[in-house]
């Protein structure tokens, strides 16, 4: 179970931060050693250290950070067995369906288990996640992972819910349903048996293709779900950078300087740059933008503008999110 732990102990799951997109999950065990390209890190040294600690390798050639697992960090580090549900989708689904501490949630299929972790964290010890996976190998891997991560509020079942439905021994009474299935319309009719009868139930179907959404809409309508709405979440990540500010007047002054020198017959610009004994450039004329030099971003000899940019590639689609709800027929009681 996710928790707010301060200190690393034997048997803890730790995410070793090796690089920004390189988090390596390790289970701390005295005597084991984490080997990275930045050196070796004995587990024994980690025990007793606070989570978040920066630790240096045995030979002090590099360092890592020892991170406390969260569903969001786990999503970065996990082995992708299927397309995963990213945080920008899962966070919206959880917020919109009002999943909170104590909620009871159905998830099918489990897939790589990234969303299962987020559900488990959010519903907490008083809540429950019922997760279904039809692919045996993936089911077994998820089972092992959930046990090792102590997701005690998750009930994982190996089942093809489209054919066999959701019923298990325990009473489910799900308040929210999340379907990440190739044909959600086959699973939807089975839901009425397992959702809560005393309150409005929310559903989200996660489908990459439009045609899947259209079929799911029809199934939802047939089964009495209302307020059906398709959405998609568009997310971007920006990072802060600095861009050199090149002023017009500096560019003009550079041309004036060239002209002056040409008149003086120097024609310096046609000569290869001279270097002094230290290899530094000498006299390229007026050089307002460090032309031809390697400039570090933010170099104080120049003027900079704060800018933001995304990475070179954007995730432009994950899946469509189809929301609906099922309102129980209750009589007025007052």
């Amino acid at each position, binding site marked *: 179970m*996710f*928790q*707010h732990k*301060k200190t690393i102990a034997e048997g803890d799951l730790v995410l070793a*931060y090796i690089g*920004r997109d390189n988090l390596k999950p390790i289970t701390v065990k005295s005597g084991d050693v984490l080997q990275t390209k*930045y*050196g070796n890190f004995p587990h024994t040294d980690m025990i007793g250290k606070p*989570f*978040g*600690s*920066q*630790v*240096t390798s045995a030979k002090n050639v*590099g*360092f890592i*950070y020892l991170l*406390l697992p969260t569903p*969001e960090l786990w999503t970065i580090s996990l082995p992708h067995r299927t397309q995963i549900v990213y945080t*920008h989708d*899962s*966070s*919206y*689904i959880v*917020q*919109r369906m009002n999943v*909170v*501490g*104590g909620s009871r949630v159905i998830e099918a299929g489990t897939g790589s288990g990234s969303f299962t972790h987020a559900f488990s*964290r*959010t519903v*907490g010890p008083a809540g429950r996640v019922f997760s279904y996976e039809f692919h045996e190998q993936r089911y077994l891997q998820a089972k092992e992972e959930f046990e090792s991560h102590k997701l005690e509020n998750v009930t994982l079942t190996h089942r093809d819910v489209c054919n066999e439905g959701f019923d298990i021994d325990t009473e489910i009474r799900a308040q929210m349903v999340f379907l990440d299935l190739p044909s959600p319309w086959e699973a939807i009719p089975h839901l009425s048996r397992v959702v*809560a009868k*005393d*309150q*409005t139930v929310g559903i989200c179907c996660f489908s990459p293709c439009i045609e899947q959404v*259209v079929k799911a*809409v029809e199934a939802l309508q047939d089964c009495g779900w*209302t307020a*059906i709405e*398709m*959405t*998609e979440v*568009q*997310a*971007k990540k*920006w*990072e*802060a*950078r600095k861009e050199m500010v090149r002023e017009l007047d500096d560019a003009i002054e550079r041309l004036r300087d060239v002209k002056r020198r040409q008149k003086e017959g120097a024609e310096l610009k046609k000569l290869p740059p001279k270097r002094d004994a230290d290899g530094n450039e000498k006299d390229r004329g007026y050089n307002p933008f460090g032309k031809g030099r390697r400039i*570090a*971003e933010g170099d104080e000899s120049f003027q900079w503008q*704060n800018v*933001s940019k995304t*990475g070179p590639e954007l995730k432009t689609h994950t899946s469509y999110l189809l929301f609906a709800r099922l*309102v129980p*027929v*209750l009589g*007025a009681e*007052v």
Partner: protein
Amino acid sequence: MPEIGQNKVISPNEHCLVTMPSGSLRIVQLKPGGTINLGKFGHFLVDGTFGYAYGQAFEIVADKKVSPIKDLLVDLEDSNDGTPIPEVKSSANNKDLTDIGQKIQKLTTQDIENMKKEGEGNQVARQIIEKMIQSHEAFEKKTVFSQEKYLTRKQKKFARRFQIDRLSSSALLNYYYHEKDPQRVLDLSEETLGSMMSHANIMPGGNYLVLDETGGLLVYALLERMQGQGSIIWLHENDQPNTWILKQSGYTDAELDRFLRPISFLEFFEPDEDTGKVFKFTDKEVEEMPPQRRNMYAKRLARAEKLRQTLEMVANQDLDAVVSVSTLNPATLIPRVLEALSGSRPVVAYHQYKEMLIELDHVLQKDKRVIMTNISETKVRRYQTVPGKLHPLMTSRAGGGYVFHGLRVLPAEGVQAVGRGKKRKSGDESAAS
């Protein structure tokens, strides 16, 4: 006691969200015996709604009474609740339709007003719409598609229906974001709020440091997730935090006192011997106080003790995240609160303008205490979800804000990045070799 906002059925005295056919929203308190006035969508007696599940839609029938219906905007074709298309012809296309706007529909505003006065229930809406169609010269020249569109539009205008939803944090936020002025919640959208909750790893049992200039919307969302487990330290820049939105949602002062730990900038950043100091009376003096005064004294002592505990949590670095929705310059604010967090804890700061978060990112990229910095933008696109007419909504509210997030770490003393002098791509703080 179930936590605020977690009741499953519509219950007396609760605050809830009412949605009207036009999409307009209202927050109302359901006082037993009361009547609620929805303007042109009618009046209804509150008591009739009790016991139905939150999420139920109703139609107003005679005598302000309500009757449950399947859906607020039930499809015209396939329901008994909807206004049926009267028996009129339609055209294969709009070819012969002339665009002369309002004039074509001969019912006057006065006619409509008169009809409205005659009845109270949704029956009136049906009558009005039918009359409009009968008096609409070109209705038969429209395609079935255009006819339906016309009816839906009229229905949104005249139907005497509404829906009652639980006042979840999303409901409360959407009310301000879509219905009222989004600036009151600093332009924060539902999806951005959700993203903050996830990145800040909010769960029952955590201790969170919060800055909230929305009057408590952010705090309301945390309370909802935490279900009474854990604590919220509310760092504010006045005598006490501004809680106008929290109070509108039904929380009492006593409840807020139980769940929250307010602390001012001065108390947080410059605690001194005066901080939270209360003059101590002797037991005898206390005994002799008049009851009201004694009560007040006890409260002051309790508050002082709570502040002492809060300062201890801060000093012990016991906090599990900082979550900020503030208009203060985050580049100077956030670095100053980092020391209150445990290691490997999220740092999450919202701002309406991305430009205000860029400097923060630059500052923290250099500050060795935060890694994995990012500025996220999350935007939901909604679709008209009608099979055969599926498309994204033509217009949507802009904005929604940006979220900075990073992870607080504990740098080892004396560790130096053995950089190779070459510029790192994408400002990554990856482990040096």
